[in-house]
């Protein structure tokens, strides 16, 4: 499988170098949000982010541990076998968490007591091992740093929002100061209140991508493991179908990129973007045009490059798989209606 997909990877991964910090931030923090979409690392969010202060303390340490462990894996740990790497991630976390706890106990002694066992538990946060294994092992140091910052910011945004909502309605305070709520609902400070708030936030995010910005709905659905009819969101992009159906687009840099392809693809995207701002078109149309152009360029490259045979063989396979997949999806949707 890996050998077959290598040529398309090269085409796709060209976009990763053109993609700036903003797009990485958008995909990692919002479209693939670790808590709201893929539900990773729920424990500290649900249990302990009851106030704004504790949420900020937790978010600072997630930033530190994520950046440290991912940069370290990208620089040093690439050649280790997998079973040792997973143990080393927790050691990296401990190396950050232990001095942080000693330092913060002098600044905020009461809040650190309130955090309790949940702060040292962040060393075995599954978010760290997941991001390291999926991204940092394969990528360069710079990309690992960007990815760590973006995913940690997505995690900490959810932490801070739940902490703020629970502090306002659960205990009637903001940062420890009283506001005009005489009878706060203290049930929200329990873990089930955290679950309810996270659920409503996830619904709001899903609604946004379904109704207002439908471009990323498919990717969000894939990362939240829901089976969804792909053609519903992908009717307009007829040209780009073959790449879209079979694999979720993850943009990862790869060392083995041919230089010929680089020169041809670098030019048009950024220039076109700048020119289109003058016309003041809505964003969706822009994205569609860009995707069409990229697809057109991809076709050119297919014919220019020497690997045409591989692409042909793959496309046949894709056509066979794609048709069967579509039929199965139709049947599944009919059956999955909940019965009471």
């Amino acid at each position, binding site marked *: 499988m890996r050998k077959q997909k290598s040529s398309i990877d090269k085409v796709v991964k060209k976009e990763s170098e053109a993609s700036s910090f903003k797009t990485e931030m958008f995909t990692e923090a919002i479209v693939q949000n670790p808590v709201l979409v893929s539900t990773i690392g729920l424990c500290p969010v649900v249990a302990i982010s009851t106030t704004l202060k504790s949420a900020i303390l937790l978010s600072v340490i997630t930033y530190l541990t994520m950046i440290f462990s991912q940069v370290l894996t990208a620089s040093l740990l690439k050649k280790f076998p997998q079973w040792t790497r997973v143990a080393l991630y927790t050691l990296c976390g401990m190396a950050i968490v232990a001095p942080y706890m000693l330092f913060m106990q002098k600044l905020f002694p009461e809040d650190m007591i309130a955090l309790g066992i949940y702060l040292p538990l962040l060393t075995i946060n599954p978010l760290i091992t997941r991001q390291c294994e999926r991204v940092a092992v394969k990528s360069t140091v710079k990309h690992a740093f960007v990815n760590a910052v973006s995913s940690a910011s997505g995690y900490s945004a959810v932490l801070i929002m739940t902490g703020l909502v629970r502090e306002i309605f659960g205990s009637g305070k903001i940062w420890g100061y009283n506001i005009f709520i005489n009878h*706060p*609902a203290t049930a929200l400070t329990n873990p089930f209140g955290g679950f309810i708030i996270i659920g409503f936030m996830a619904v709001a995010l899903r609604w946004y991508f379904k109704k207002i910005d439908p471009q990323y709905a498919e990717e969000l659905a894939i990362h939240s493991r829901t089976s969804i009819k792909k053609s519903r969101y992908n009717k307009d992009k007829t040209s780009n179908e073959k790449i879209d159906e079979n694999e979720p687009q993850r943009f990862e840099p790869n060392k083995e990129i041919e230089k010929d392809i680089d020169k041809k693809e670098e030019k048009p995207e950024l220039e076109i973007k700048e020119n289109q701002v003058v016309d003041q078109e809505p964003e969706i149309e822009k994205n569609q045009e860009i995707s069409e152009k990229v697809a057109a360029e991809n076709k050119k490259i297919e014919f220019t490059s020497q690997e045409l045979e591989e692409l042909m063989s793959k496309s046949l396979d894709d056509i066979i798989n794609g048709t069967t997949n579509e039929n199965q999806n139709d049947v599944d949707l009919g059956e999955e209606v909940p019965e009471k």
Partner: protein
Amino acid sequence: MQEIDVQKIRQENKQTRDYMIDMLIMLSATTIMAVFHYGIRSLIMVATSIATAVLCESSIDLLRKRNPHRIGDLSSIFTGAAIALMLPASAPIWLAPIGSVFAIAVAKLPFGNARTTPFVPAAAGFAFLTLSYRELVFTYPSVRADVKGLVTGQEGFVSGISVANMLSQKTSIGTGIINMMDLFVGKVPGPMGASCLFVMFGLFMYMLVRRSSEWITSAGFLAACSILAVVFPRVLTGRSISLVMELSSGVLFFSAIFFISDPITSPKSQMSRVIYGFAGGVLTMIFRYFGEFEEGVCFAILIMNALSSYFETLGEKINNRLNNKEYKPKDKKEKKQKKSKNEKDTPKDERGYSL
């Protein structure tokens, strides 16, 4: 595309509507007793909570751009009234609306409509209120002869010790209760709609006549509660008195009639319903004996709602064992086929791991 049976949906809606009409007739009897004991203030509380429940449901429907015809189920009216009647009469007026908003916005509408909720929304709302406003929910006013009629403020009430509080402290009968007649009539401090035993027995008999299939669960529930009350009394004076006190205290009888017999959340065959109710009774008594709160009925009902499908299969197994048949689950082959299809469909990473 799946086809929608309009006639089937209409029949189901009509079934819920008929059930809710019966429940509302039964609730009206308890509201009359509440007005008799605590004055017009109780009626105002019930009306505000009903109004907020209906407003909440219709506004959420309008936000989702749907026709708010589902209010015709009358289920939102039932939840609002039930939450208000479980509270003490001295509670502030904003307390019941908060419970009803939680019940509808969190426990009911995210799961669909009244036919598809896995939990009884009124029980969820009352559980939320007990967890968040513990002092307001469990301080009951004493019933006085001169209060009748036109007390609308919160000042006219004097706080008294409820029966559930006496039982939880494991003391013998307090000095307040001399007549057993007061317990039966409901002159004891307690929740305003649920403390009168005579009315509750009347409603129980009404249910036997009108809704015999739903009556079985509540009968099993009450049987379990009464057996445990007789066997393990929390009162020093005697077993029969402990039975009366356990049944009359708190929201036990009320929730036995209105919540655990809910045909939507409870299992469907008769045998499984009896077992379901019995297990629910045992759970509530465990919550009462060892729990943190005076009243743990709502938590027990929520747990039982979550386990109702398990009790359905258990009831079928017992039925088949009695009839000397082997238990065969119906959809085993279909489930296997579904699983295999899903495994194929899951998208995979470049390395071959499923996302």
